């Protein structure tokens, strides 16, 4: 007999005759047992009526059960979570955008305000509050369904035991009934029957307890799941968005979503706009414009990105563009799971509806199959891996294979970590430490289109990886020019490619500030043998001298418009021709003719007016008396002579040598002069130290080389910053760096100081105040601008500077993008009452009365450490404190101080109406005029349970207040009830009291002890269980 039939036997078919009282008790027990699985303590009510103890033929194994659970998780939870996180977000964003438009203030403020004011889940979500308010009922329904289905699968094991149970019950029922056991007296029958009822009653009770416990646990697991899922979403979504967020505009992260909603509204506005134009009515132009611009940008940016990532270039554009629009739609909708059904009915008019259908179908199949193992799941798993790979790991080898799939990829280190940030244009080549190689395909038999693809590919490399702009030189030209690099099967490393590419461009084209001879020298140095240099290739000085000479000779040999581009004028001064700004980017080539004579050839783009004559400055002339005021650093004894020789513009450096004779005709020595500024360099060759004239000339030459070397180095390391410097300033920097670092470290030191954009003369003062770590400090732009004020600098000493900088560094490590060092110093000196915790929260000195710990405020969307930041978070912390004291005092007024504290230290899981009533009587509920507050409080606390135990009511309430800080100040419904009490609105007074209570709490050893004990008790599960059992026993 099946148990189902048995149910009927007991409950309906066989009336229990004997004792009416007992009979009804028995029946009630049996009824409840069989039909109702009442779960009084559960947090949700399961769909119990259908949950009968019926038997089915289900033979599913545990493995099948797992699968089923898996599927349920996918369907139920995914749907629930996306309802909360997905669909709703669209409306929320529209709301945020709508709010932003009407805000006042800066752009940043506008969006921040709009998000803060947003009532929707999304506003909270983006404010960093992960606790999106979930639809509790919906979640519980999902949980109930889930477990029900699970039971259907796993519930069958106990069939035998249950059948036995029912058989025994039936037998006992029969025996103890009137006319049952023959030899059993009626009295005993009644007693046994009561025993039977008792057993069934106990079974029912325990079963109900079990169910209650189970449901509680499931509900917690579900809540935890949703929380984790939301957190996971936040993290993953942040990672995804960060990659595409413009630096310094953090608010754009949120706008990425809102944009399209705004666009949609804008488009409608535009249609109306156009219509109204036809009617001759004026409308707001801006909306429609913005929307059109946006959509255009989105589409173009999307298409560009896809093409760049798939390395498609413009390939295929033509053939696809002529492709019939409907045909394109057909292929997409098939891929999206719409099949062919709709395509036949689609025409140009309703193709938009078709797209919508396709997208809808696509989304539906993602929802339905997205989380289930099998083909669909695999596809989406690949998809998410693809996104990650594209985001973090870009593999040029793979990209290469896509282009030339039939060629094997060999050599190179393979995977290269390359963030999208680095892929943006303008990233310096030295920041990319990539190691990869590519195999050169055999282009000799390639079709023109393949060569074109290859050139495109190189162009891609050139921009994305090398950071080199080809400046009009096509990749094909480059290939032709360097046949040795592009031999079939040879591996070309990107370093080599980049170096060659850069060098090629550098030595052949004119850049700003470069002259004709500059290019000549560069070309000679690039390949000295080609220009007849026979000396040692490792002799840098030798090559330099050789190249300088030859480049100048070539200038003397080259005519432009019938005149040599370098030479001597009639007044004896040397001159050369300079290039005008228009010549930049133009090619200049140094050529050796058959007789070994060098001359220049110019690119066809060079115009006559771009070569102009450059004369030496007349102020310092041969025969002129030395102006000693210009060389204050010079020992007076050598002064008083006459300038006897001028070799201006000796090289491209613009460094001139002035031979200097005393009145008696004796050679005194040589000065070095910046020919652009006529500034004497702090360097002098003393002829008295030379053994003879030849030795003197040698000393001059060596000094010259040493100085130009230094200038070269400074120019190289100082980059853009050093460009405006005079030669004197450059040398000063070089000398300073050599003195402070020496050897190879000098270059780095120079770089660091040059980067600081401080004048060379100021460096000494800076180092005096900041110490030897100055270069490191100056890399920090915030610190740099801080110390650039003389008054600030004067106040600092090395140890204070170090301390300040370290602190700034620490704050930056905690997520601040910029530091106002002025404020930091002030805050530090005045021991401001705050700290930033290791996990980046604002730690106030004010203690929470609810947790007795200092109040921590999570920092959201804050990237600048300054006074505004401090005041804002300080205010929030005070606001929270005020609110907490309001609550605490309210509780205190009803429960007494100890009572309020006990309530605060209660485990949040015990916070139910029953337990609160049990502990505190009616006084607690009476505290609040409006009981909704308690209900909401309970719901909030229950909803936000993070762990099943160990969190106190006080902590939870505190967290709730912190989390809702944005709304807290604006008196949301939950706290209105408290705030409506005028007595409690005297914030000032409360804050005064707060200080006292704060101290009281801190000093109350007894309280601490109690709290400790309570914590221990809370942690003891065994004890809790015992307590629960005892309580139940008492109730009985």
């Amino acid at each position, binding site marked *: 007999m099946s148990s189902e039939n048995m149910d009927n036997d007991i409950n309906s078919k066989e009336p229990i005759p004997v004792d009416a009282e007992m009979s009804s008790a028995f029946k009630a027990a049996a009824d409840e047992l069989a039909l109702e699985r009442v779960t009084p303590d559960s947090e949700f009510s399961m769909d119990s009526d259908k949950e009968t103890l019926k038997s089915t033929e289900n033979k599913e194994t545990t493995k099948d059960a797992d699968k089923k659970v898996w599927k349920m998780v996918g369907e139920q939870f995914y749907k629930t979570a996306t309802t909360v996180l997905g669909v709703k977000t669209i409306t929320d964003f529209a709301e945020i955008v709508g709010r932003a438009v009407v805000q006042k203030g800066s752009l940043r403020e506008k969006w921040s305000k709009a998000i803060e004011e947003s009532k929707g889940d999304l506003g909270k979500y983006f404010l960093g509050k992960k606790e999106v308010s979930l639809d509790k009922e919906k979640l519980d329904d999902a949980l109930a369904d889930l477990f029900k289905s699970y039971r259907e699968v796993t519930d069958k094991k106990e069939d035998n035991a249950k059948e036995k149970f029912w058989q025994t019950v039936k037998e006992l029922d029969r025996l103890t009934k009137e006319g049952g056991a023959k030899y059993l007296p009626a009295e005993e029958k009644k007693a046994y029957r009561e025993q039977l009822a008792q057993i069934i009653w106990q079974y029912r009770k325990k079963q109900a307890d079990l169910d209650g416990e189970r449901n509680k646990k499931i509900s917690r697991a579900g809540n935890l799941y949703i929380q984790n899922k939301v957190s996971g979403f936040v993290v993953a*979504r942040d990672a995804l968005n960060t990659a595409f967020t413009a630096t310094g*505009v953090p608010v754009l992260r949120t706008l990425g979503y809102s944009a399209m909603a705004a666009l949609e509204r804008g488009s409608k506005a535009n249609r109306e706009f156009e219509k109204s134009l036809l009617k001759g009515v004026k409308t707001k132009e801006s909306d429609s414009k913005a929307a059109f611009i946006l959509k255009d*940008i989105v589409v173009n940016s999307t298409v560009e990105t896809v093409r760049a990532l798939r390395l*498609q270039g413009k390939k*295929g554009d033509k053939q696809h563009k002529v492709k019939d629009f409907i045909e394109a739609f057909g292929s997409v909708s098939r891929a999206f799971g719409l099949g062919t059904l709709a395509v036949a009915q689609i025409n140009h008019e309703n193709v938009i509806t078709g797209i*919508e259908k396709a997208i809808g179908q696509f989304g539906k199949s993602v929802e339905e199959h997205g989380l289930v193992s099998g083909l669909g799941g695999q596809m*989406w798993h690949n998809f998410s891996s693809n996104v990650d790979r594209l985001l973090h790991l870009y593999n040029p080898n793979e990209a290469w294979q896509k282009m030339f799939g039939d060629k094997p990829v060999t050599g190179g280190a393979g995977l290269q970590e390359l963030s999208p940030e680095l892929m943006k244009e303008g990233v310096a080549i030295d920041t990319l430490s990539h190691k990869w190689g590519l195999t050169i395909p055999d282009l000799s038999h390639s079709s023109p289109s393949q060569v074109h693809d290859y050139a495109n590919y190189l162009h891609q490399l050139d921009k994305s990886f090398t950071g080199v702009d080809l400046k009009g030189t096509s990749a094909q030209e480059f290939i032709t020019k360097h046949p040795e690099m592009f031999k079939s099967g040879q591996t070309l490393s990107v370093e080599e490619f980049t170096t060659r590419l850069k060098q090629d461009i550098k030595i052949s084209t004119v850049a700003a500030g470069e002259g004709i001879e500059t290019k000549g020298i560069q070309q000679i140095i690039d390949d000295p043998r080609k220009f007849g240099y026979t000396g040692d290739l490792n002799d840098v000085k030798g090559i330099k001298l050789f190249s300088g000479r030859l480049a100048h000779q070539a200038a003397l040999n080259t005519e432009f418009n019938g005149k040599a581009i370098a030479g001597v004028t009639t007044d004896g001064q040397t001159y050369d021709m300079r290039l005008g700004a228009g010549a930049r980017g133009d090619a200049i080539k140094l050529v050796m003719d058959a007789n070994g004579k060098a001359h220049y050839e110019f690119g066809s783009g060079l115009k006559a007016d771009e070569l102009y004559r450059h004369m030496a400055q007349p102020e310092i002339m041969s025969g002129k008396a030395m102006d000693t005021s210009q060389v204050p650093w010079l020992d007076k004894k050598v002064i008083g002579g006459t300038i006897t020789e001028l070799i201006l513009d000796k090289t491209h450096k613009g460094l001139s040598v002035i031979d200097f004779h005393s009145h008696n005709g004796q050679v005194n020595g040589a000065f070095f002069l910046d020919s652009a500024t006529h500034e004497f360099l702090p360097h002098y060759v003393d002829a008295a130290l030379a053994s003879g004239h030849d030795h003197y000339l040698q000393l001059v030459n060596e000094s010259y080389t040493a100085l130009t070397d230094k200038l070269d180095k400074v120019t190289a390391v100082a980059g853009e910053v050093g460009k405006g410097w005079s030669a004197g300033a450059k040398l000063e920097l070089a000398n300073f760096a050599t003195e402070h670092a020496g050897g190879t470290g000098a270059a780095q030191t120079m770089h660091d100081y040059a980067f600081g954009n401080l004048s060379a003369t100021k460096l000494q003062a800076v180092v005096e105040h900041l110490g030897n770590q100055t270069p490191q400090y100056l890399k920090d732009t915030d610190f740099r601008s801080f110390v650039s004020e003389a008054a600030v600098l004067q106040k600092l000493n090395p140890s204070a500077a170090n301390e300040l900088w370290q602190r700034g560094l620490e704050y930056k490590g905690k997520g601040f993008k910029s530091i106002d060092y002025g404020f930091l110093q002030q805050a530090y000196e005045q021991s401001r009452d705050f700290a930033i915790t290791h996990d980046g929260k604002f730690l106030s000195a004010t203690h929470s009365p609810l947790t007795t710990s200092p109040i921590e405020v999570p920092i959201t969307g804050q990237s600048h450490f300054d006074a505004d930041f401090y005041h804002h978070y300080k205010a929030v912390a005070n606001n929270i404190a005020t609110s907490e004291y309001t609550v605490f005092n309210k509780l205190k007024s009803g429960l007494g101080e100890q009572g309020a504290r006990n309530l605060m230290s209660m485990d949040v899981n015990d916070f139910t109406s029953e337990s609160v009533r049990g502990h505190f009587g009616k006084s607690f509920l009476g505290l609040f005029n409006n009981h909704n507050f308690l209900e909401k409080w309970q719901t909030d606390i229950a909803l936000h349970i993070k762990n099943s135990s160990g969190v106190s009511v006080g902590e939870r309430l505190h967290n709730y207040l912190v989390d809702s800080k944005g709304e807290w100040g604006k008196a949301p419904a939950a706290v209105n009830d408290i705030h409506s009490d005028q007595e409690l609105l005297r914030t000032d007074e409360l804050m005064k009291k707060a200080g006292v209570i704060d101290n009281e709490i801190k000093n109350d050893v007894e309280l601490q002890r109690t709290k400790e004990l309570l914590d221990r008790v809370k942690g003891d599960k065994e004890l809790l269980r015992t307590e629960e059992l005892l309580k139940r026993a008492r109730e009985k």
Partner: protein
Amino acid sequence: MTKDANNTQVDVLQQIGRSFGQRLGYLIASINLTDEVREDLLILLPEMTGQQILDLSNILEDAYLNHKTIDIDEKLTVELNSLADDYNNKESSLLAETNDKLDSLLNKIKSVAA
């Protein structure tokens, strides 16, 4: 609305558009579609309404996010399984215990009544 405010708004939208487009581009480039279908999708893109583009992006993003957090689903499955096992065990014991009580009552009655 002032002219400046309009211009700022357009600037912001431009930035948004580029970021959004790049992100959508990454997502589209990542789906397992043939190059031809992908290209077709790009042809359709300009024809789509803003809402449709947003929907497409949301679908792709949801799928991505769900797979990034799939371990959380797995954890729940494990936990629910263990909860159910625990429950089943306790329920079995309860039933066995009750059956024992019933048996002894039955035996008692039988011994007395026999």
